């Protein structure tokens, strides 16, 4: 049946700058200072090593369940690196490196995944939200922050992270729709790592790309090679600028891969082929970036070696310091922070715990 095609203001697009062999597209290469390039590299390397060490700690039973980031270093760092400290960052739960870049202490990750609430504390001055575990729920907070920024006429933006699976939650669409209606300064960064636990991207949605989901809300959407830190940086920079100067929200789909486990409770051999992982190992974001830096003469094998030692030592210190703090915790502390002040009913419950503890102590002394 013949009919009119509706012209849309936006279409979904794709961007790649640094290919998997480290070859850069001169046309598109962003002009970043040597200092920034090296800083990005060191951060990714440290992120990778910290991730490996956390996995060891978990395997040794020294911390609980945690979600590794291996393979997604560029995908999150390229985006967050564009932000000003005064901007806001709203992570999901797999943005460990992005949070470290923003200033969260490695020590706090060990505390948090070691079972200590103190670990999710957000220091004054760092405008980030703590991790958000309910999938798809946090993007609305970023939109609300963006709306508040607009109301206060501040030159800030809010950047939020979420996975491919999160795009199936209704809240994801409500967030894009609110952001569009109020033209809030928000950048939506989807970490499409191809898997939502055992569900592959193709089973998550019939859509060809996740970037095109922006079209439902009249927003620009772009898909970038998430293992290419330069492409992620360039796309994020454009989106952040647009948001900062009143151009409204953008959806960025970082096309990457989760090389490791969903969490330490997960067994990927149940649902994916080693072959697929091997293919993606070749696209490692850190290796290709090292090639790029070496070709630019910014990185030597020796420098790299030194850097590795430095990072190893840094992480070792962090582990020791945090474990010194993991001394079991103070039971009565659990009554903190549910309300600003303890209501009478909670004061009574706290007293009950206090006396139970005393009693238990007495019995121990008895035996």
């Amino acid at each position, binding site marked *: 049946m013949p009919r009119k095609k509706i012209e849309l203001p936006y279409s979904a697009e794709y961007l790649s700058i640094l290919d998997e062999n480290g070859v850069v597209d001169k046309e598109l290469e962003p002009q970043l200072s040597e200092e920034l390039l090296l800083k990005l590299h060191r951060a990714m390397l440290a992120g990778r090593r910290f991730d490996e060490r956390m996995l060891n700690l978990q395997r040794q039973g020294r911390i609980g369940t945690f979600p590794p980031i291996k393979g997604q270093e560029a995908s999150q760092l390229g985006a967050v690196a564009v932000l000003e400290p005064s901007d*806001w960052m*709203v992570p999901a739960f797999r943005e460990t490196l992005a949070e470290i870049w923003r200033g969260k202490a490695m020590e706090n990750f060990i505390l948090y995944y070691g079972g200590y*609430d*103190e670990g*999710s*504390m*957000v*220091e*004054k001055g760092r405008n980030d*939200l*703590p991790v*958000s575990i*309910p999938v798809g*729920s*946090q993007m*609305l*907070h*970023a*939109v*609300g*922050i*963006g*709306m*508040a*920024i607009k*109301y*206060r006429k501040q030159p800030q933006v*809010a950047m939020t992270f979420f996975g491919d699976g999160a795009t199936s939650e*209704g*809240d994801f669409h*409500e*967030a894009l*729709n*609110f952001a569009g*209606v*109020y033209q809030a300064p928000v950048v939506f960064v989807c970490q499409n790592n191809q898997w939502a636990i055992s569900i592959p991207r193709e089973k998550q949605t019939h859509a060809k790309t996740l970037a095109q989901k922006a079209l439902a809300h009249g927003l620009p959407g772009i898909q970038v090679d998430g293992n290419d830190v330069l492409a992620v940086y360039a796309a994020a920079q454009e989106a952040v600028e647009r948001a900062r100067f009143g151009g409204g929200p953008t959806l960025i789909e970082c096309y990457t891969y989760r090389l490791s486990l969903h969490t330490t409770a997960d067994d990927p051999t149940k649902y994916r082929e080693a072959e697929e992982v091997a293919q993606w190992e070749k696209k490692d974001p850190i290796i290709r970036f090292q090639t790029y830096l070496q070709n630019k003469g910014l990185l030597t094998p020796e420098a790299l070696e030194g850097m590795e030692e430095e990072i190893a030592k840094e992480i070792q210190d962090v582990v020791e310091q945090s474990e010194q703090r993991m001394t079991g915790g103070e039971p009565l502390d659990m009554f*903190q*922070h*549910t*309300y*600003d002040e303890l*209501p*009478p*009913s*909670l004061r009574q419950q706290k007293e009950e715990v206090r006396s139970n503890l005393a009693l238990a102590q007495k019995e121990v002394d008895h035996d």
Partner: protein
Amino acid sequence: MTKMTMVQALNLAMQQEMAKDDRVLLQGEDVGVDGGVFRVTDKLLEQFGEERVLDTPLAESGIVGTAIGMAIYGLRPVCEIQFSGFSYYILHQLEAHAARMRHRSQGRYEVPLVVRMPYGGGVRALEHHSESREAYFAHTPGVKMVIPSGPRNARALLVSAIRDPNPVIFFEPKALYRAFREEVPEEEESIPLGQPQLVRKGKDVTLIAYGAMMTPTLEAAEELLAKDGVEAEVIDLLTISPLDDALIMASVQKTGRAVVVHEAPKSFGPGAEIIARLMEKAFYYLEAPIQRVTGYDIIYPLFALESAYMPNTGRIVQAVRETLKT
């Protein structure tokens, strides 16, 4: 003082708080141009503009989810959910984030959010427009659950809710929106959250209720005095949760008898908690089992039968007579 309906009194509370604190803003479906389907936010758009009175897209989770972000940023959003029957769409945002952000950030962020909504029956409404599910929110740590019972306390409680640093669910008894007027002072007035009120003194039995149920409860107290010479003491909870039971205990330790009244379904409803508290703290003073006069554990019927569902004066009087038998 001018005589106001609850709708006008709630409007006054928001108008005054917005006028003196630019962190306060409103959002919800139809709260702007339309002034809310019950007109509770009438004229506030004209006075404060689109930046502070936001007509939102039709998405409850979106309304509360974005409000959480605003609150974290430092604003004091007041959201309206058009009917409490649609508040279930927000439970995950409320439980997972509004209630937990203070704890999760270890005190760095707080969520001074108010979510207002009309609740309850008795207005010949459509399906989903008559329910009372305050128990869902009362059982959610980190949230405060408030329900006024008249124009004056509605205004004073909403003021406190807006100023409270914790998320507050504010149920408005829609049956009372225009049922009667009260003197409401122009000058600022607030009632601290978390404090039930003694609204009628008595020595023979304690009646505990809140919201729209205060009307039949107070009528019952009158009737009991007139017909049976029974002096009923009446307590209005005002804040359902966190529940401060001190006043209830003092009263029942004196009267030895109590009847709890609510529209919500009986089982696992708010009345059960009050009885459990009395069991724990006033058991030795009880002279008769405490009675519950409540809604039933069924789907709320369409309005041809709602009078059969709703607790009324007759049922309350009847229950009191029961407790006095022994």
